[in-house]
């Protein structure tokens, strides 16, 4: 079984490049050159140096003792939250900005949901002195205000997407339209393993540094490279793709993807694409997506802006179809409780997205001897407002109960 793209950009039944002819030249240029460029020794050297000196890699693989005690197993957290800018997103933006420079592009665009990819893109654009425009849904601009401020401070222009659900899907539409209108000078830095081939594969390769490090670090810590399970949250699925990448062909490593159930997969307010989606084409990629019977893409919902996407990367659709990975879903409430628990047990404030992966510990089965790696994809500073709101609500409820 192959878990990599074929020559046409497909993972099994999923993938491809369903682009309007207007983007043909750009996408073709990328398809033909991306592997050549990113495996040039000069590119690799620059990429690795930046990841080391600028991003702060390798990120620690941390044995979370109190969390492990609580669940009676061995839990390691891959600390992607400790990257510069606070999430795994920068692994990809460093790679793509170096690629864009080599393609001679002078302008960068990006979409963002939680704002982490937008911040990571704005950051590398400042670093390389390239113009940067970030599209962000109007709803997300409100709920992730700190990241909007960070992008602006870094010199990026943040453009609100005001159509549809005003979240990540719509920001992606606007970014693609911008790319169509400015295809000659602009490179589109897609933030996840979605979009037309070669993006899903290219982004997965840039993120694969996560699993590359996990292997080395586990070898040092426990004497073997492979854990028993790797858990990661999945919106589009870039952090999961990176965390799974070097374990895809290690069939004894369980891969667990965690989708956002929102208010519950049967409530109509969910972003659990694999749970309720069907095959189709979204953002130029054949994959699983949430849609109505007439193929209109439906509006997703999750408390977490980074998981609020009606599609999923074609790699994950393929891993799901072939049953190589197991996918579960976690509700808003479960994710919030997992976040509070990590704060108290380990002194780490996780991003809402990553909290979905943490909450999986309540849902999966494992034994005492197992080694479980959870990809802690981002830090929770951007989610403080949501956390405080929930905490206050809980405290009020508590007081109310005591008074009765």
């Amino acid at each position, binding site marked *: 079984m192959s878990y990599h793209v074929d020559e*046409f950009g497909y993972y099994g039944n999923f993938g*491809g*490049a*369903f*682009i*309007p*002819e*207007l983007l*043909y*030249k750009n996408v073709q240029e990328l398809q033909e050159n991306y592997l050549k460029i990113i495996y040039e020794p000069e590119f690799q050297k620059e990429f690795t140096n930046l990841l080391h000196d600028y991003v702060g890699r390798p990120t620690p693989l941390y044995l979370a003792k109190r969390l492990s005690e609580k669940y009676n197993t061995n839990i390691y957290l891959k600390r992607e939250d400790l990257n510069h800018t606070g999430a795994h997103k920068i692994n990809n933006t460093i790679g793509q900005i170096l690629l864009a420079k080599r393609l001679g592009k002078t302008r960068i665009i990006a979409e963002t949901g939680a704002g982490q990819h937008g911040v990571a893109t704005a950051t590398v654009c400042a670093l390389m002195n390239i113009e940067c425009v970030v599209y962000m849904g109007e709803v997300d601009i409100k709920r992730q205000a700190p990241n909007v401020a960070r992008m602006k401070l870094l010199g990026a222009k943040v453009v609100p997407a005001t*159509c*549809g659900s005003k979240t990540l*899907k719509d920001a992606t*539409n606007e970014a*693609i*339209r911008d790319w*169509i*209108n400015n*295809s*000659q000078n602009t490179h589109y830095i897609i933030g996840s393993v979605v979009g037309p081939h070669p993006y899903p594969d290219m982004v997965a390769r840039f993120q694969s540094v996560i699993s590359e490090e996990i292997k080395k670090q586990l070898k040092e810590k426990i004497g073997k490279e492979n854990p028993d399970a790797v858990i990661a949250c999945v919106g589009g699925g870039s952090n999961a793709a990176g965390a799974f990448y070097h374990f895809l062909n290690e069939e004894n490593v369980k891969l667990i993807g965690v989708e956002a159930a929102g208010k519950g997969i049967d409530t109509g307010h969910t972003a659990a694409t694999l749970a309720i989606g*069907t*095959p*189709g*084409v*979204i*953002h*130029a990629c054949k994959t699983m*997506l949430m*849609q109505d*019977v*007439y*193929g*209109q*893409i439906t509006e997703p919902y999750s408390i977490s802006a980074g998981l609020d996407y009606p599609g999923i990367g074609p790699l994950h659709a393929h891993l799901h179809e072939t049953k190589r990975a197991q996918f579960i879903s976690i509700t808003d409430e479960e994710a919030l409780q997992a976040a509070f628990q990590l704060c108290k047990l380990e002194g780490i404030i996780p991003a809402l997205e990553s909290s979905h992966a943490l909450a999986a510990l309540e849902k999966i089965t494992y034994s005492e001897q197992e080694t479980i790696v959870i990809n802690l994809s981002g830090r929770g500073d951007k989610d403080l407002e949501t956390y405080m709101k929930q905490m206050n609500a809980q405290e009020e409820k508590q007081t109310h109960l005591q008074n009765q």
Partner: protein
Amino acid sequence: MNRTKELFQKKSKDVLSVYFTAGFPDLNSTMDILLSLQKSGVDMVEVGMPFSDPLADGPIIQHSSEVALRNGMNLDLLFEQTKDVRKHITISLVLMGYLNPLLQYGVEKFLQRAAENGFDALIVPDLPVREYEFYYKDLFEKYKIKNIFLITPDTPKERIHKIDALSDAFIYLVSTLGTTGAKTNISDEQQDYFKRIASYQLKNPLLAGFGISNKETFEKACAHTNGAIIGSAFIKALEQDKNTEQAIKNFVSSIKQPEHIHK
């Protein structure tokens, strides 16, 4: 014979095609708009099938799609509305829409119903050439629906010839690298591009689209092509005048004098 092919045999200059979104401005305006367009003397109509995420479209067509979907438009309803379209409409009829709704409907079922109703051709901007060739060409041929490909100023010559070989009605010449309605003029550079494509002497006629909005741009676009397509500007006209029939008559006559009136 396919009406779209027939059209270009009879008329090789100044073909006017108008695009509108089915379900806009009102859910049931489809047949009225078609009748008025034919009466006003347009040669071809593109009936847009609204999609929630129209990637190649600018704000005007996006908005019309959003309104149409909110009004309740869907493919079953569109086929129901146009069941008897060929009792009244004799001009060339083309459907235009994005791939995902077609996939969910079932491409074969879609082509079959489109053919039954008397549509001649289909434009799917996000259906790649390779996917068409591998998976759908036989079905299009089975139901005698012509697939219309787009070419742009960036499409390499070799690929243009491949697209010409795969086409059997006309080729949609995208006038500029942009979304629909993004530009409203035709520059000298675009004229050169039209001339360049004309010099390739393709077997298929060429219809220019994107950025054609009025008499001036229509005439410029027609100088080196077989005709042109107007979309966003027409949608805007429909939106501005609530009297649809009058709006259509005024709009079409502002573009060209009808050389004959269709029945």
